[in-house]
């Protein structure tokens, strides 16, 4: 520090100034001098001094005032009073104002050197203390910021967070956890978990972690029922450890997995339903093949051919089922985007009537259509529309009676184009009516048994209508017939 130390001498006596300057310069200090208080203060403002020697008795700004002002500029600066009128009173007063030491005139260069050295050491300590203080303040600030940031982060999380200390007391939590656990009183921190939470399995799980001796595990996951029995929570509980691996507390992250569970359940139900629907026709096909191959039925060539034809028919229906499943999958996964464009439904319907003509003839069902000629085209996917009306019209044929009829009507109703498909068939009873759009639902009775169907035709129809923002309605009277009405929104005119 010696070489770098800046020293200022403020004294109106030139002899003192020069003498001190020479003595201190020889010791390697950088020394400046001022002949009065005003000049001295000016120099302090311009340059950082470590130590100032101040004469108390000066014209203008006196020594006392200078000490006061200098300490105002730099509280860590060391001031040493030099004066000829050395009295205890002046020394005490100067010390009160911040002076560090006192050197009575006349003094020897050695005495000066000792005082300056001691003063500079003090200066070093003061600067160090100031630095540490600043660092500490900064650290405190960072800590506060960090805590606030942490609270903000966990506060924003949709997952619930609970932090408990080793004694099982709650130290940190977020709003989601309060909501998920429907807890009472999260207003204060530091109470035992039981104070806030009445979820017994969760408390047991957290305490199990806190009391664990196991050094290795990092997290345990539990499925925990919430108070509301419909809600299922996944609790991931992890111990917080010190450097030696000793447990200090536990962090619990709660996730509401109710929806996930529900989706899984629906998926399993669907898979088992599909498996059953696929297995029945497969078993029938295999059964017929076994009848022929084993020869146990003893049929001749003509009979065997008929039985094989039964297997063929059943494989057709199996194929139709797989096709329908693929259509549903395509619509639900959105793998193939709909190609929306202007579609004239009338054209599609006439084409389908043409295609289904032989089918209708076979069932001895007549088809009539009354489609308003000026119907505007609508925004739709052509393939979807073909599938939709094929399903509905072929149902009207399939479930009709002998010599029955199908009547198709198309017109504008409000903001929709409306198509009605009326049949004179077996109808649908009230108990079945609410279920006919469900997957694989078929109103099984004596009459429908012999009519092939996948049970997915209306499911697909309703999915198509929904994806076009329309609606499908059905009215039916058993033994009289059914009316399916499809409403598809008109295109918004741009003008």
């Amino acid at each position, binding site marked *: 520090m010696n070489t770098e130390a800046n020293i200022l001498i403020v004294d109106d006596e030139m002899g003192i100034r020069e003498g001190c300057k020479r003595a201190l310069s020889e010791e390697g200090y950088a020394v400046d001098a001022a002949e009065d208080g005003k000049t001295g203060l000016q120099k302090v403002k311009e340059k950082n001094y470590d130590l100032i020697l101040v004469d108390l008795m000066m014209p203008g700004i006196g020594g006392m005032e200078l000490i006061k002002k200098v300490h105002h500029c730099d509280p860590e600066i060391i001031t040493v009073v030099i004066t000829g009128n050395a009295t205890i009173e002046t020394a005490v007063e100067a010390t009160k104002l911040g002076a560090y030491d006192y050197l009575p005139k006349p003094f020897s260069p050695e005495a000066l050197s000792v005082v300056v050295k001691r003063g500079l050491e003090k200066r070093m300590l003061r600067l160090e203390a100031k630095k540490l203080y600043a660092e500490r303040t900064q650290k405190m600030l960072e800590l506060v910021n960090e805590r606030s940031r942490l609270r903000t982060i966990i506060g924003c999380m949709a997952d619930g967070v609970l932090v408990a200390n080793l004694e099982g007391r709650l130290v940190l939590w977020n709003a989601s956890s309060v909501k998920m656990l429907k807890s009472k009183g999260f207003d204060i921190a530091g109470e035992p978990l039981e104070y806030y939470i009445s979820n017994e399995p969760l408390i047991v799980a957290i305490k199990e972690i806190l009391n664990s001796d196991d050094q290795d595990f990092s997290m345990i996951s539990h499925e925990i029922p919430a108070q509301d029995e419909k809600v299922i929570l996944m609790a991931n509980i992890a111990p917080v450890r010190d450097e030696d691996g000793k447990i200090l507390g536990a962090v619990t992250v709660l996730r509401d997995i109710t929806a996930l569970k529900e989706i899984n359940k629906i998926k399993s139900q669907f898979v088992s339903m599909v498996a*059953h629907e696929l297995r029945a026709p497969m078993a029938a096909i*295999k059964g*017929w093949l076994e*009848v022929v191959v084993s020869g*146990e039925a003893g049929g001749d060539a003509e009979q065997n051919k008929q*039985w094989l034809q039964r297997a063929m028919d059943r494989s057709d229906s199996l194929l139709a089922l797989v096709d329908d499943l693929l259509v549903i999958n395509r619509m639900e996964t959105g793998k193939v985007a709909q190609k929306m464009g202007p579609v004239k439904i009338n054209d599609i319907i006439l084409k389908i009537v043409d295609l289904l003509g032989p089918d209708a003839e076979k069932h001895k069902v007549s088809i009539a259509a009354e489609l308003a000629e000026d119907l505007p085209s609508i925004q739709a996917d052509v393939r979807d529309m073909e599938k939709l009306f094929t399903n509905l019209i072929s149902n009207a044929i399939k479930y009709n009676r002998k010599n029955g009829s199908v009547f198709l009507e198309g017109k504008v109703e409000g903001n929709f184009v409306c198509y009605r498909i009326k049949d004179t068939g077996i109808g649908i009873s009230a108990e079945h009516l609410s279920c006919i759009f469900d997957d694989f639902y078929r109103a099984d*009775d004596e009459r429908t*048994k012999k009519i092939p169907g996948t049970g997915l035709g209306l499911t697909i129809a309703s999915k198509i209508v929904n994806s076009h923002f329309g609606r499908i309605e059905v009215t039916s009277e058993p033994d009289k017939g059914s009316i399916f009405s499809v409403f598809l929104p008109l295109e918004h005119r741009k003008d």
Partner: protein
Amino acid sequence: MTLKKRILLVDDDLDFLEMHKVVLVNHGYEVITATSAQEGLEKVRAEMPDLIVLDLMMEKHDAGFSFSKQIKSDPLFKKIPILMVTAVADATGFKFSLEKDGYWMKTDEFLDKPVEPAVLISKVEKLIGEKED
């Protein structure tokens, strides 16, 4: 000349009904059919068959169970052996065994669809033979 044994087939799947029928008829049985549990009960009363081949799952999923329970709890019909067939046991992983489930599942024999014709015949012969003894 012995009288032809009469077998009642109850199944809502017409393919199974017919394929079982052609096999059984070829082996000298007289076959009557029903496509629902209700029709099956009527045919049992009217025809008094020597054996019933029953589909487990019909229009209502437990139709086969309740049908067999009804038969087995009726003093007039309980001696009629029942051969239960199903297309779903494998798919659902729901395995039945007569030792384990016999007390609640009132049936004499249990087979997965499709039943091999030879197996069907041997089970039918066995059940009708036991009834005779």
